[in-house]
């Protein structure tokens, strides 16, 4: 088993009086799909936003490839090779697929002219490499794409930059059956290409299909770390809703009444 590529040790974050995360441990290895589950308010989004550099953690350590790193902003995070695909995808509807995939990192020639041909080629290669074949054209404006196509473009955008860790926030939440299938297949292909994939989802069915391991959060704390093959959906639901919380006095043991 490979060593974790990304590891959070005891990270905490509070917003005013609200303790959003408390001493959370989290890790993901190359080539595996790690699911992050938890009820609303469990701290899933806070955790990934911290990793993405949207805001700093109050305490704790982030290790990347075994070395401690400081992430002060989104740029630090993407420089390490961590890419986040947010739930709202953050695509500019008025721009085409190529422009979106390269947004903010356009290739230029002669110093300042956008190298459209080069970008279009790389975009096509990346999409083809991920077997995304549902797009009519990479010059299509994103506004005209379906939900699944948009998700595929957002994922392709994330992996195009030699990224090592891809974090997907609710990638299937708004999708129909066929489109969910597209995206889940895509997630598996990412792991096959030895990327570390973190997937946040409320849909345990999806998670059990793609995830190798599952980290469950509850009220801002890590509750369990499962091997997907060793547990049932029932176990995970129990962990999400009534798991043990070692930093809450009286709840160190499995509680019955929560």
């Amino acid at each position: 088993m490979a060593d974790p590529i990304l590891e959070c040790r005891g990270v905490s974050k509070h917003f005013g009086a609200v303790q959003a995360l408390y001493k959370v441990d989290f890790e993901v290895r190359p080539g595996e799909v790690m699911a992050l589950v938890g009820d609303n308010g469990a701290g899933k989004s806070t955790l990934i936003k911290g990793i993405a550099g949207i805001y700093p953690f109050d305490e704790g350590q982030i290790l990347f490839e075994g070395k401690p790193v400081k992430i002060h902003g989104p740029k630090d995070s993407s420089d390490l090779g961590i890419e986040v695909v947010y739930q709202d995808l953050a695509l500019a509807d008025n721009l085409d697929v190529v422009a979106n995939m390269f947004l903010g990192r356009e290739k230029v020639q002669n110093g300042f002219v956008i190298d459209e041909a080069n970008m279009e080629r790389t975009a096509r290669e990346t999409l083809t490499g991920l077997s995304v074949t549902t797009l009519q054209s990479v010059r299509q404006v994103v506004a005209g794409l379906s939900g699944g196509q948009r998700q595929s473009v957002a994922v392709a955008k994330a992996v195009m930059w030699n990224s090592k860790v891809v974090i997907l926030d609710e990638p299937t939440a708004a999708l129909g059956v066929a489109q969910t299938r597209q995206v889940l297949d895509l997630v598996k292909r990412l792991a096959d290409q030895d990327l570390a994939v973190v997937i946040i989802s409320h849909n345990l069915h999806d998670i059990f299909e793609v995830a190798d391991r599952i980290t469950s959060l509850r009220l801002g704390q890590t509750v369990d770390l499962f091997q997907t093959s060793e547990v049932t959906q029932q176990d995970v639901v129990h962990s999400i809703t009534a798991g043990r919380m070692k930093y809450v006095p009286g709840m160190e043991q499995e509680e019955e009444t929560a």
Partner: protein
Amino acid sequence: MTSETQTPDELPPISREHKEPTTVAEFFQAWWVRVQAGDLGFLPIIIGLVVIVIIFGSLDSRYLTERNFTNLLLQMASFATIGIGVVFVLLLAEIDLAIAFNSAVGGVVMTLLLRPEDPGWPWPLAIAVALTVTTAIGFVMGVIITKTGVPSFVVSLAFNLGLNGVVLILMTEFSGSGTIRIADETVRDISNAFLPDLWGWLLGIGGVAVVAGTELLKYRTRQQRGLPNKPMGILAMQLGGLAVVVIAAVWYANLDRGVPFVMVVLGFFLVMWSFIAGRTRFGRHVYAVGGNPEAARRAGISVDRVKISVFMIGGFMAGVGGIVIASRLQSVATNSGGGPLLLNVIAAAVIGGTSLFGGSGKVVSALLGALVIAAVENGMGLQNVNSGVKFVVTGLVLLAAVLADAFAKRRQTASGIR
């Protein structure tokens, strides 16, 4: 993470069902499908221009004369120049209501600095200072809008009033009559001189050659990288069409006094800003911020910096337009920048197809819209109608333009293009 399995010549199509059009006939078919789906491009505005020309041409025999054509170019130049700045501001879904009086500030500052012996600055310096002032005004507006989050509508409305006041104060301070004449020959020539026939031809043909060169270069690059191209026949037709229009315009203008010099100024800025909007990272970021500011921010684009730069572009082009107007009138007056100028320049950008909701529009739309506005104004001027009727008709043209746009958008939504 790109797969290196493909060689340049055999990149597979991105979709199994879809095929890029490769012949002229297929291309026209694809184009017609897009038009039917509501993606009209510049089609409505070109039809509109033809209709306007037919209407006024049949009403008055003087309308379709070479003398009137050059007049129309002179009238249109200032709208188009300022309109370029408006296009940039609208691309961000912002608005700059101070743009007309900012242009007047530019004209007045230049004129004051040019007054013989008081201080009697050379024209390059006077123009440079005037443009610096209007750009700085745009900068201040941009900073206020981005740093406070107050909508640009309100901030620029305040600047609209304030700059109107500045123009009045400067004019009453430095002139008794309310008008200052421009004595400098060079500055007066900007909007009053005409190119010799030969230079007009060189300008027109040179312009077409530059466009053709860029397009052919793009075609070749795409071919070399194994990317789909539009059919060569279509490219030839497009370039040929452009050449015909430009050559006809130069020929027609040469029948009269020649191509106005101000077209060189306008042409330069049209090409420059089109290039910046379409081919540079900055331009791409302007579209991105206009389309989805949050996506732009997450992509590491400094949204504030883009916005401030765009308001500076607005101020700069307003200054250029103000100088063009002052040169045309050979003076500035207390009413400079007032009247319908503001609405005309915003209408020019919108009629030309720039969306008020941001993210969609082209620099050249300022030219097309300005042509429409000037064609209407000019025609009504010949009809000797009073300015009330002028406003009503211009208003109706604007309404027709935005309605056509709205219907096209609805069509596009229905057919899934956007």
